[in-house]
């Protein structure tokens, strides 16, 4: 099954490129300490605002830090927070969707109406309020984004469950006296795994969108940790004299989110 998925993914050059970009950033996030020419937080006050050159491929920022090194190192925080929050959000959302779709009735009604209420709010607004009260930290960021992703995921999983819950194998499991949890996770979940995988990729793109935006707004990763969203906001005040400080992280974010989304669209279409 993974083989056919891979083949559909590599069928078009655009999608192949997108897969390469995603894998490339993942690899960089793991091995960046071997790649960076300078320490990502090492300051060189003599060499501030240096334009791109052979020495500093992407120039230096307001503290004389090497932008390329910070970009490479910054891939780690965005991917860790993105992957962790998506995993948590999809796990919670899938469980809620399974419960709502399988049990129907009042449980379904109550769950879905509360999720509707949560979804009626702009993600960024709820996230800023919660993070303002909890304080910014990587863990809080993961929790808040997972909370925001779960309802969307639950809804999709629920409708996938609806088309399986009345099958004979579910009735058989019930007659065998299997527990609710067994039916949900052993009988129903394997059948909707395809949907869950596509959901994971789509939510990952949204999650990285949110991580970058919240860091840009000041609720995410805190300085001096290298982070793409944060780098854009740090570079914003002096973009006129050193545009490369803003361009590099902005392009990095764009490349990652677009690549993930192209892969997600392709998986959904197949």
């Amino acid at each position: 099954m993974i083989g056919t998925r891979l083949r559909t993914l590599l069928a078009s050059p655009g999608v192949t490129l997108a897969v390469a970009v995603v894998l490339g950033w993942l690899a960089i996030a793991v091995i960046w300490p071997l790649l960076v020419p300078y320490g990502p937080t090492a300051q060189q006050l003599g060499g501030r605002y240096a334009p791109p050159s052979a020495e500093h491929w992407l120039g230096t920022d307001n503290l004389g830090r090497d932008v390329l090194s910070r970009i490479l190192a910054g891939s780690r925080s965005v991917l860790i927070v993105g992957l962790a929050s998506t995993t948590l959000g999809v796990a919670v959302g899938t469980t809620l969707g399974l419960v709502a779709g399988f049990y129907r009735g009042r449980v379904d009604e109550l769950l879905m109406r509360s999720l509707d209420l949560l979804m009626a709010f702009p993600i960024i607004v709820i996230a800023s309020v919660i993070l303002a009260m909890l304080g910014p930290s990587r863990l809080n960021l993961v929790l808040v984004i997972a909370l925001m992703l779960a309802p969307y995921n639950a809804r999709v999983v629920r409708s996938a469950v609806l088309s399986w819950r009345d099958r004979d194998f579910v009735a058989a499991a019930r007659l065998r006296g299997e527990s609710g949890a067994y039916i949900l996770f052993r009988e129903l979940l394997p059948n909707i795994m395809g949907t869950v995988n596509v959901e994971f990729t789509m939510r990952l793109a949204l999650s990285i969108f949110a991580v970058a935006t919240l860091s840009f707004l000041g609720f995410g990763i805190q300085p001096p940790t290298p982070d793409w969203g944060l780098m854009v906001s740090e570079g914003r005040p002096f973009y006129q004299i050193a545009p490369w400080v803003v361009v590099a992280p902005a392009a990095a974010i764009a490349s990652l989110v677009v690549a993930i989304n192209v892969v997600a669209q392709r998986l959904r279409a197949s």
Partner: protein
Amino acid sequence: MARSADSGLLRYFLRRLAVMLGLLVLVSVLIFAMVEILPGDVGNLILGQYATAENVDLVRQQLGLDRPLAVRYLDWMGGFLTGDWGDSWRLGTPLAPLIGRRLYNSVVLAGVAFAFVIPVSITAGIVSALRRDRLTDRVINGISVVSITIPEFVSSMFLILFFSLLLPWFPSSAMVPEDAGPLTTLRYLALPVIGISPVLIGYIARTVRASMITELGADYTRTAYLKGLDPRTVITKHVLRNALLPAITVIANQIAWLVGGLVVIEAVFNYPGIGQLLLQAALVQDVPMLEAIVLILAAILMLSNLAADLLYTMLNPRVRAQATGGAT
């Protein structure tokens, strides 16, 4: 006949309004609970972390924070309904006029944004459905896939770099001068509006395309073609009418996204709107201001969803018959 349909619609509307008000009360309790229960001590927040315990207690007393939670909630809600929204902890000034002014600015920005987004996205959706699977469709589809994924602050930074720094056409900050006429105002709002729109345009265009394709393949469309109507008439008189209905719901759903986008866009362009105010309140933990802004936003979002539902019901005879119990 018409009269009974109208009264059915009115009943439907009143029922929905009642549900909405109930939800809004629930939301206000949630907002209040969320902000009050989450950690962060007010006394220390205002006096700094080295304040003595007595002074912290004094501040809590002055703010009335030593009273039970339920009493404080009722006091807050009562004030809210009578127009007394309390004072900002940080600025010490009444909230209502400040929030009102900022909200007005944001509504102006959002209005201009929608005036730009709706025609562009609907046209893109229609064109791409009519040219389905051809080059135009693929290009439009490619642009929408890309545009819904890029965070607003990223596209806005690129806009500023290109159209403010490289080509000095537009100001990079949206602080519209006091005495600006409509044209100058538009010039200041151009970049923020273009920055906030790609995600919205992407979603709406894709919905319009999908519903156009469904309607183009419907039986009534084939009948209209077969009875010899000119293609233009078929599309404008038959297909568009049905295809644009789902767009109303999507546009209403996008209002939530727009509000989130406003927070970001107003931060990027220093625009004095409600989003920027929310951000400032959140960063300094100005609790009364946060509560007031979130409640106002919740009310606006619910009202606009209700308005969209109502419009949809009025324009769609099938739904109308259902909602009003077949009174038509």
